[in-house]
């Protein structure tokens, strides 16, 4: 199962890749920007995207909107990764926006544990089966 991690922070990409490596069936690719991710998604077929909420250039939210309006990409589930607390008002408002963006299927708040990451990924993948 191919999973694409999109984050401008190298260490987060490596960290998520390492953690997801615990499950042998996951094949993880890292993109460092939304533009790079779009290129990658055109080349390969992905089962899940783990996407950073805030990125320079095209943000995570913008990438989701592009995906939602693309026939080929609109069915790929996205998990938003953010340093903003899920209970915060800002995140709740964005969350409302996410709910309107069909591709977003889950939220993951930094810092997360290995179990939280694996659990969330599994849950979203099962949801899409």
């Amino acid at each position, binding site marked *: 199962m191919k999973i694409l991690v999109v984050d401008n922070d190298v260490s987060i990409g490596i960290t998520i890749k390492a953690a997801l490596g615990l499950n042998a069936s996951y094949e993880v690719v890292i993109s460092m920007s939304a533009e790079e991710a779009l290129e990658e998604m055109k080349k390969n077929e992905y089962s899940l995207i783990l996407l950073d909420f805030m990125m320079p250039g095209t943000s995570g939210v913008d990438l989701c909107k592009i995906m939602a309006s693309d026939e080929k990409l609109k069915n790929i589930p996205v998990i938003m990764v953010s340093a903003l607390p899920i209970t*915060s008002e800002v995140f709740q408002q964005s969350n409302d926006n996410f709910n309107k963006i069909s591709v977003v299927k889950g939220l993951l708040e*930094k810092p997360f544990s290995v179990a939280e*990451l694996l659990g969330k990924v599994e849950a979203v993948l099962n949801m899409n089966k």
Partner: protein
Amino acid sequence: MEQVVRFFSMKVTRKIIPVLLLLVYFAVVVWFILNYSYPPQSYFLILLFLFSNFPSALIIISKKSDKELLNELKFTEKALRETYKHWDSLLSLLPQAVFGYANNTEGNILFVNDFGIKLFGYNDLEDFKKMGYLDIFDSSQKAKIIAERDNLIERRSTAISEYVGLKKDGTKFPVALYSTPIMDAENKVSGVLGILIDLSEVKRFKETIDQLHSLDKAKDDFLNIAAHELKTPLTSILVVSELLKTKTKGIVDQEIGKEIDLVFGEAERLKKIVDQILTATRFENKHNVVKNQTFDLLSLIKSHIITLNSLAEPRGSHINFELTDGKEALISADPDKILEVLNNFVDNAVKYGTSGQTITVKTILSGAEVRLEISDQGAGIEPEKIGRIFSKFSQLENSLARTQEGIGLGLYISRLIIESYKGHVGVESVLKKGSTFYFSLPLIQK
């Protein structure tokens, strides 16, 4: 009529003689009537004559002598002088400039109190009186001052405005001017009375307070941003050290295993601190989304007994639970937040208690609220520290003397959580005996 009033308002000693005279007058008339026989209708005439003369008699006897009038005038003058002196001392004492100026184009200063002379840096009253009232304000405001004065005189009202004052040496300073027209005997506006307050200090205080506020905000913003920025690297350290821990289990020797545990444990601790800072900031900025549900506090504590024991036992404390039996304590709150407070209180009791102590977790149901008490057998809290214990960074106040880990946000957050559910927190402590931390929350009536 006036005379009658005056007569009755006269001193008793002054009344005696005229009253006696009148009585004698009456007595003589009555004596005549009784001793000489007049036809009955003449009695009526005599009485009529008597009463028609009575007011004139009063006028005559109650009229003041010249001497009396002179004395009265002197007395009034003395009283006026005294009143004037009182007002004059009051004016000199007033820590505000009081002045009057004439209602003419020059606006000549008519009078000014001592404070006003000093405030504007003049030598004396004569020096000050050479000025027109416009000269004591910055020239840029002339038009505004004249317009406001004209308006004031026309409406005969009181005005309060802020201007820039001008001292004799040219120094400018902010002032507030209260002014009201002065009326003469013919009810014409003869001048304007002004009270002028120096706002320099007030402005300075305000600026300092604003600066302090913005510094405080900058500190909060910095903490918030720093905490957010820490989250990303913290994620990597947490996840990778956890992975290392799992992957190297049984492969590396015990020493390295312990070191990896240390990294993971410390990363977890750092996560807790970051969480605390962010929780506190969110509460302060009211960005917290309050999730309420109705639940039984007693059941919640019971389900949490194992976790609480695991907090206490490894560090040599035993917890004794004294929960109200066979009853429910329904409250409306977020159970996770209430557990956070409970953990905080128990964690504190463990940290500050002595090894081998018994911590008591007790619930009290009384009337409209439920109270939860957590008592330790520790050193107690010094009375001078007790008042600040629920404030922000209470641990940091005496950093060198800190005996325990943490940055002193735990109790502060606990207070914010409990207060957000309309409850309150508190502590009672006896030195060398121990402390009891408690919170109470309103009960939901079924």
